[in-house]
């Protein structure tokens, strides 16, 4: 008997011109799991996430959310599935022309037609959850530090209380202390919402903190998938090289463009 997974990715292939980025990516994420996909730069982590979100169309393979197909689905069905998802983008992707609270409330006001007066208290509550007060709410994103922008982006991702949360390199560009603060906030938010989470990162400290399971992506394939507690004795030479940050090993760094 096959159980319905929260997210199911099967044999996904994606190329850009002659460059093959995903080469048969397959994994399942059960409800309530926090999966972190690790891997070097350019291994296809972001592309995997964008394919799951339906922002990119794979050439081959299937992606399902709650048993419903995202790949090949009509636009309305993709939009309905996306309503279950909150996403924290690598650079925050906050809207420059809107204030902080308008950014956080966006999924409610524009996405779900909620009145601004109703949405503002929700936005302030979510901002408080990530440690930001009302004074910040009236500022514009350009007036915030990188760490504060990440917090606002996290508040925006959780504003509509989604079932699924995606985090794209949540700690990139942050100092170690702020990175740890963001990791704690992510772990707490996922727990509070009871959400299923998929994160991509090459920051092992972040992975250890927010993952229940880890998958390693290399050359467009998942080469290892297991519980976070097994990461240091995975028996996989790719994982060992990546976790210990060694230059020598089976992963060869590409020094010039293909």
């Amino acid at each position, binding site marked *: 008997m096959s159980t319905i997974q929260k997210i199911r990715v099967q044999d996904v292939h994606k190329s850009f011109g002659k460059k093959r980025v995903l080469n048969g990516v397959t994994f399942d994420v059960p409800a309530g799991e926090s999966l972190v996909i690790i891997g070097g730069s350019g291994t296809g982590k972001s592309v995997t996430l964008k394919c799951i979100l339906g*922002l990119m169309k794979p050439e081959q393979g299937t992606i399902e959310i709650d048993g419903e197909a995202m790949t090949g689905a009509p636009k309305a069905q993709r939009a309905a599935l996306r309503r279950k*998802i*909150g*996403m924290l*983008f690598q650079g925050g992707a906050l809207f420059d022309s809107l204030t902080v609270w308008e950014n956080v409330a966006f*999924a409610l006001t524009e*996405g779900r037609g909620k009145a601004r007066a109703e949405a503002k208290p929700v936005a302030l509550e979510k901002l408080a959850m990530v440690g930001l007060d009302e004074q910040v709410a009236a500022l514009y994103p350009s007036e915030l530090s990188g760490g504060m922008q990440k917090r606002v982006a996290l508040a925006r991702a959780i504003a509509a209380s989604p079932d699924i949360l995606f985090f794209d390199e949540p700690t990139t560009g942050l100092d170690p202390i702020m990175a740890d603060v963001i990791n704690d906030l992510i772990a707490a938010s996922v727990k509070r919402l009871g959400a299923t989470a998929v994160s991509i990162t090459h920051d092992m400290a972040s992975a250890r903190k927010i993952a229940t399971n880890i998958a390693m992506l290399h050359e467009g394939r998942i080469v290892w998938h297991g519980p976070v507690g097994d990461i240091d004795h995975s028996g996989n030479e790719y994982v060992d090289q990546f976790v210990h940050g060694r230059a020598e090993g089976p992963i060869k760094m590409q020094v010039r463009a293909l």
Partner: protein
Amino acid sequence: MARFLASIGGGFLDFLASIGRVGSFAGTALSHVVRPPFYPRQLLQQLWQIGWLSLPVVGLTAIFTGMVLALQSYTGFSRFEAANAIASIVVISITRELGPVIGSLMVAGRIGAAIAAELGTMRVTEQIDALDTLATDPMKYLVVPRVVAAVIVLPLLVLVADVIGVFGGYLVSVYALEFNGANYLQRTLQYLETEDVVSGLVKASVFGLMIAIMGCYHGYNSQRGAAGVGTATTNAVVSASILILFANFFLTQLFFSR
């Protein structure tokens, strides 16, 4: 020789493909104009940006165009003792051609570039992807308000340009060429027909559509990085300007060839 012909053929096919992509983009944008949800706040903001904030540049262009037109007409027509025709030449030239064409070219420079740069930056910083994940269709939220605003506002701008342009001609004729003011105004109104003004306003609406579509298309499909946004901005202004001049010929033929 074969390679040379192949490169010409390849370039031509690319050109046809790009026309197809723009046509498809425009068709999608226009189909969203009548389908909810609508974003009136965005529309009002664009009416302000494209309309009110373009008034100074359109007004300045119009007044100098009218003044130069009066001066040049006088230089030419006084040789045939037809200087009295200046009033009618100025008003017909301004309302039929110079108001809509020069006004629209100036707006293409100001607004076409601004739209492409803004949407291009949003593409590069993943803000357009973020809209998708926040259950908001970027086509409806970003493109439709700009297109509708440009179609509404361009005729109004051109109407203002017509009045200011005629006033420019009046200033030069009365204060520099020593025409009688009352006679000048009488001749202006005597030879002006409703069709002259209406044709210019219809042209302006079509040009507004072209400016917004080209700005949105190039910005929406901007390539990565600062260079990508720069290229998108340049392409938006150049393509909109060429389309305006191209369409002006056919619209003029449609209205006035009998």
